[in-house]
């Protein structure tokens, strides 16, 4: 009962006055002594209630941060791993597709260049001939030119086919670059998760340090979209090909 001395110091005089007033039958002195005790007691009680409320708030905050963290660890992190693996696969696929197309186009361009060079050489040889004299000379010149004409005849359709193929390959290289958009969207979603994790951990540290201002969670508008489909991660019914979309829309009368 070490506190008795404190109680005596705080309330002793007042209790004596109260007792004396009571014995005297002095109502107003008695009540003013009671008021005094209440006034002494109230601020302490209030501060204790305040402290309790604060502790409760902190416990609730900690609980909300911890359940957020638990959810991130349980669901979001494995999802993020699957997303990033999907990104690796997509970039791998796109790079190989591009390299394939480049490897296939190179020889076509080379062949065209080589055959054009051979034709030029044949022309040069023909031009270097001495001038044709007389009917026989002209006949010989025509005969000498015939192989060049045949080479041109063979060259032109091949050059056209090769160039067209190269053009198609280039268009496919162009489309293959679409991976940057798709993987970019997926990586952006992982960055968002890392940010959220950073905030949750930061809040937890701040809470342990006594600060209690939590980072507000930003919610995207519902119209923002979910990003590209990631196998094993994206939930709900998704169209896996353009034909699914077309079928769905034609079912809606479009």
């Amino acid at each position: 009962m070490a506190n008795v001395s404190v109680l005596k110091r705080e309330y002793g005089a007042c209790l004596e006055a109260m007792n004396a007033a009571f014995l005297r039958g002095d109502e107003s002195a008695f009540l003013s002594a009671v008021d005094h005790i209440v006034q002494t007691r109230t601020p302490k009680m209030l501060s204790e209630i305040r402290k309790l409320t604060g502790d409760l708030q902190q416990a609730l905050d900690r609980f909300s941060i911890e359940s957020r963290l638990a959810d991130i660890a349980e669901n979001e992190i494995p999802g993020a791993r699957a997303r990033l693996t999907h990104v690796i696969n997509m970039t791998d696929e796109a790079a190989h597709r591009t390299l394939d197309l480049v490897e296939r186009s190179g020889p076509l361009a080379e062949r065209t260049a080589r055959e054009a060079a051979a034709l030029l050489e044949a022309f040069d040889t023909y031009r270097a001939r001495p001038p044709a004299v007389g009917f026989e000379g002209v006949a010989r010149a025509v005969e000498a030119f015939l192989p060049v004409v045949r080479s041109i005849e063979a060259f032109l359709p091949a050059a056209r086919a090769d160039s067209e193929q190269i053009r198609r390959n280039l268009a496919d290289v162009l489309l293959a670059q679409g991976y940057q958009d798709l993987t970019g969207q997926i990586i952006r979603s992982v960055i968002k998760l890392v940010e959220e994790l950073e905030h949750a951990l930061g809040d937890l540290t701040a809470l342990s340090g006594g600060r209690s201002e939590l980072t507000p969670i930003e919610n995207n508008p519902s119209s923002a979209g979910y990003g590209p489909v990631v196998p094993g991660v994206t939930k709900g019914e998704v169209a896996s090909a353009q034909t699914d979309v077309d079928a769905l829309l034609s079912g809606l009368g479009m």
Partner: protein
Amino acid sequence: MSKDLKFLVVDDFSTMRRIIKNLLHDLGYSNVTEADDGKTALPMLQAGNFDFLITDWNMPGMPGLDLIKAVRADARLAKMPVLMLTAEAKRDQIIEAAQAGVNGYVIKPFTAETLKEKLDKILGTAGK
């Protein structure tokens, strides 16, 4: 159908805008302008007599779906042909886009043939 159509291509990824622009060029449409989200696209549409809008869905700022709703709500733009070109592939989203008034919906990754087919269909130039 005139090949002088003025296109606005809206996508937050510049690579995708270049791809679409190149494909449009290959199809003979050379009048192509770019914007990187709905917020920049809307005033451009309102100011500059465009004939065709191609938009992504998932963009920071104003998403494509909101852009389409804003376009349909603007009396001067309400009838503009709109093609959505997006990686968003959930069934509900496709329905939502249809209800918002898109004229076509193409999911990424897409092919040049798909793009041509949808453009032709929307412009009524199929088989021409």
